[in-house]
């Protein structure tokens, strides 16, 4: 092993690069401190697939490509998340994700039977990522009408919602067994490059972690005559620096080890550190960055320190050292943030409240997608916006009522949030009584309600980190001012406790209920089939004699 094999590998790679001249691979790490004491690290591994068929690719994961081409998927987003992103304190992540598993995909317009294709796709992905996506059924799948827009370069500019399916499984628990197959999709797996930092021991200890796969089609050139497939694998981690017990962080502290150089197959390997907060809370990067980039985007100035990591096998450890002075600093909240909770007591009636807070000085239009499972029937007639049944804030509405065991309740509202205001959405629901075999194990643990999706076109890029729609690598964020910034956000989930039957006595219940039916059947049968007659009774028998008779019979 050692150097010679490594050089051999690089040579093979270069030769293959010349021959195939197809795929490119980029790996990027963005580190952003959240005031006062959190740290956001975001990995993205981008594979651009040039070739049409999945056979002659050499960097892209064939298993995933085959799924995409087999099920004729235009765009696919899959995330596995644990923890809750706190939009108010942390701003917006690059990709927001619902707690648990979340999957949505657009199928090509050739697909006619989208529902069956969707079922097959989720089953295939379930195998690929060892996640319980096979629990995706019709009863937890919706077709969002306004909330989700494709990021692909599609032949038509329209949002073909009939080809879109969305499902989230808030109960799904994310674990090492999901991370390992996810890492296998990378060209360097976990031996080289940034993915070596992804130790499950460290990342499952974070406050928030989310792994994702995003597949879409992007234009290869300006005129869009050629289309590339972009496979983006992302990891978002939020560390609580209070747990590390020091404001100073380094790769070793965060990931348990240093970075063993770049992946040799990568075209670029870059580390960006957001040093904007250096002005309010000074810190020193060790080693000092190669360059510093200033970015002005939608009214927010950001400074990035940039490191280009080389594939020379040199161990790299980037860290930050804070000055002794620890001023109390607060983060500025983003333009909109939200809050969601369950109302009511008892297990009969309840309500879901979604609070939307716009603290920007202009009105913001948002789409709110409420997705209530079938066992939480919401009543549209009880929808109140700031306590009013009819509100001017709602510009458009879509509602698809749910059906038990078949279809979830799906409500979408296009709303205009007034400047500097809190808008409260309340909707009532009734608790459903399930069949005893429909309750999950540990039924009294409660049932998870998925998060609502909130889509907004933000007028400002404050606290906004997502890439522009045409961008693929993180450098596209630099000076990318646009008239508006699309954001797809998820509120927190909720939990309800459904009334439970007694699981231990199905036989008793069946017997007792049948007995009562028999209580009616017996006498009615007698009355209808028999007639009343007088029957002579013998001389009255005393009790002792009766008992004696009983014994006599036994002796016989």
């Amino acid at each position: 092993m050692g150097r010679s094999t490594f050089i051999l590998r690089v040579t093979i790679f270069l030769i293959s690069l010349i021959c195939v001249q197809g795929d490119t691979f980029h790996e990027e790490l963005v580190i952003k401190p959240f005031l006062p004491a959190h740290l956001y690290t975001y990995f993205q591994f981008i594979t651009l697939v040039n070739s049409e068929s999945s056979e002659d690719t050499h960097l892209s994961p064939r298993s995933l490509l085959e799924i995409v081409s087999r099920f004729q998927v235009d765009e696919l987003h899959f995330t596995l998340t644990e923890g809750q992103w706190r939009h108010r304190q942390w701003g917006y992540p690059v990709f927001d994700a619902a707690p648990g598993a979340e999957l949505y995909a657009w199928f090509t317009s050739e697909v006619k039977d989208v529902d069956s294709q969707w079922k097959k796709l989720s089953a295939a992905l379930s195998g690929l990522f060892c996640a319980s996506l096979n629990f995706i059924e019709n009863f937890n799948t919706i077709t969002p009408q306004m909330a989700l827009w494709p990021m692909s370069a599609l032949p038509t500019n329209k949002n073909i919602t009939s080809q879109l399916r969305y499902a989230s499984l808030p109960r799904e628990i994310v674990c090492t067994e999901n991370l390992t197959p996810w890492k296998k999709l990378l060209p360097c797996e976990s031996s080289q490059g940034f993915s070596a930092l992804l130790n499950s021991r460290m990342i499952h200890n974070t406050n928030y972690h989310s792994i994702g796969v995003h597949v879409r089609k992007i234009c290869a050139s300006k005129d869009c005559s050629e289309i590339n497939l972009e496979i983006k694998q992302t990891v978002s981690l939020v560390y609580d620096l209070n747990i590390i017990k020091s404001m100073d962080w380094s790769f070793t502290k965060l990931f348990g080890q240093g970075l063993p150089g770049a992946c040799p197959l990568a075209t670029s390997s870059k580390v960006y550190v957001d040093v904007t907060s250096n002005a309010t809370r000074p810190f020193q990067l060790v080693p000092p960055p190669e360059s510093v980039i200033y970015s002005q985007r939608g009214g927010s100035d950001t400074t990035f320190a940039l490191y280009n990591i080389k594939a020379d096998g040199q161990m790299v450890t980037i860290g930050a050292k804070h000055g002794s002075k620890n001023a109390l600093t607060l983060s500025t909240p983003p333009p909109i943030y939200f809050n969601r909770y369950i109302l009511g007591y008892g297990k009969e009636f309840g309500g879901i409240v979604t609070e939307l807070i716009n603290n920007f000085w202009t009105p913001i239009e948002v789409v709110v997608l409420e997705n209530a499972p079938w066992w939480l029937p919401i009543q549209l007639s009880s929808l109140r916006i700031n306590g009013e049944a009819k509100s001017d804030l709602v510009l458009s509405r879509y509602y698809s009522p749910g059906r038990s065991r078949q279809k979830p309740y799906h409500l979408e509202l296009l709303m205009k949030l007034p400047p500097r205001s809190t808008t409260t959405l309340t909707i009532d629901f009734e608790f459903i009584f399930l069949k005893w075999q429909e309750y999950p194990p540990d039924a009294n643990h409660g049932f998870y309600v998925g998060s609502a999706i909130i889509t907004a076109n933000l007028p400002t890029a404050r606290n906004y980190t997502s890439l522009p729609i045409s961008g693929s690598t993180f450098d596209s964020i630099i000076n990318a001012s646009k008239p508006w910034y699309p954001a797809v956000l998820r509120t927190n989930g909720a939990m309800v406790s459904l009334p439970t039957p007694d699981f231990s006595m199905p036989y008793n219940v069946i017997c007792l209920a049948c007995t009562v039916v028999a209580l009616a059947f017996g006498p009615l049968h007698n009355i209808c089939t028999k007639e009343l007659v007088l029957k002579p009774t013998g001389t009255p028998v005393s009790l002792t004699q009766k008992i004696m008779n009983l014994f006599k019979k036994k002796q016989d």
Partner: protein
Amino acid sequence: MGAIIKYLVAGILRYWLIHTDYWQILANRVEIATPLNSWKRLIEGVYLYDQDINPYEGDSFHESPIILIIFHFLFKRAPYILPLLFTAIDLLTASLLHKASKAFVRIFLNCQQKNQSDVADESKDMLLSREQLMETSEYVLSVYLFNPYSILNCVGMTTTVVQNALLAAALCSAANGFGIVACACLAFATHQALYPVLQIVPIAMILAEVNKGCDKCSYIRTLLAFVVSWGFLIYISAYIMDGSYNYVYNTYGFILTIPDLKPNVGLFWYFFTEMFEHFRLLFICAFQINALALYIVPLTLRFKKEPLLLITVLLALSTVFRSYPCIGDVGFYMAFIPLWRHLFSFMQQKFIVACAFIITSALGPTVWHLWIYSGSANANFFFGVTLSFATAQIFLITDLLFAYIKREFTLRNGFSRMVDGKPAKLVLR
């Protein structure tokens, strides 16, 4: 004068209760409101219909489309009139029952006259006089007006109020010989809740008896009128839903397959909650046959001379065994019990049944609160109460029937319980 005061008091009581703060709690009680008839679902259905969303697409509305458009119209035009309307409909039901019971008494007297030759001499005193019987219709009125079950049903503004009115109208017009009206009203009630379909048998018998002439022609005429009007209502409903018959899955389908297992006063909810999946279909069929088809033929054959008894018993049985019963149904058939006042002396379980009704009515809400709100009881408690409530009703029905055949026997054979000078007892053989 007395009757007017009764109506007035009952009307004011209902109207006042609708306007108290407790109305919302009452309208949401599981004993009063089922998924089929609840006010909340009606509002949701009307709201969805108003917003051009098909209420039958989802799972929120299970009433008939005709009720839907009537209430849609009322909500649009005069929502304030609804409490008054429900009170008025319930009072109308009471008055129809009063009228019906008067006509029933006439039929009863005719029957008694016809069969007088069979009556043993010593039992002649047991025959009922006109005055005695005329009193009973006043009792029918009072029982319906002041029965807490029917009051609560009206206060909860359930659609069972409408269904009871239709049934009362059907029975009243049948007793007075208006065949077509009876069939139309019964068809509407059937269209709403399916189980009233059983009443077509006694109604056909009453019509044949009231309109003298060819019995078989009358049966066929009644049946034909009923089927035609029922079919017409189904067609009209489909017309309202833009020609789609999908609403049937959400009305009859919902009643028959019991997808909603929300507790009620019936037997179905916990039974099908705890049912093993591969036996579900079998037991759904068994229970629905038990409610819809099992008793109708034997009881008809046994009591073919007594359509009034048949009405009472079938109403009660279909209430006990229907998939989503509510106390409004119980209150309705209870109004017929005073008609059988002369059987009370032959009944053996009056006291037990009365106690069971009182105890379960008090215990039901208590254990419901313990289970759902305080979390200190579980589903078995409420199930136990509904079981005993059903048992009490069944005892009432069977006791009534036994009392009837005992009276019949006594009328024919006299009071003596002796065979050849030896003491004897009545047994079924």
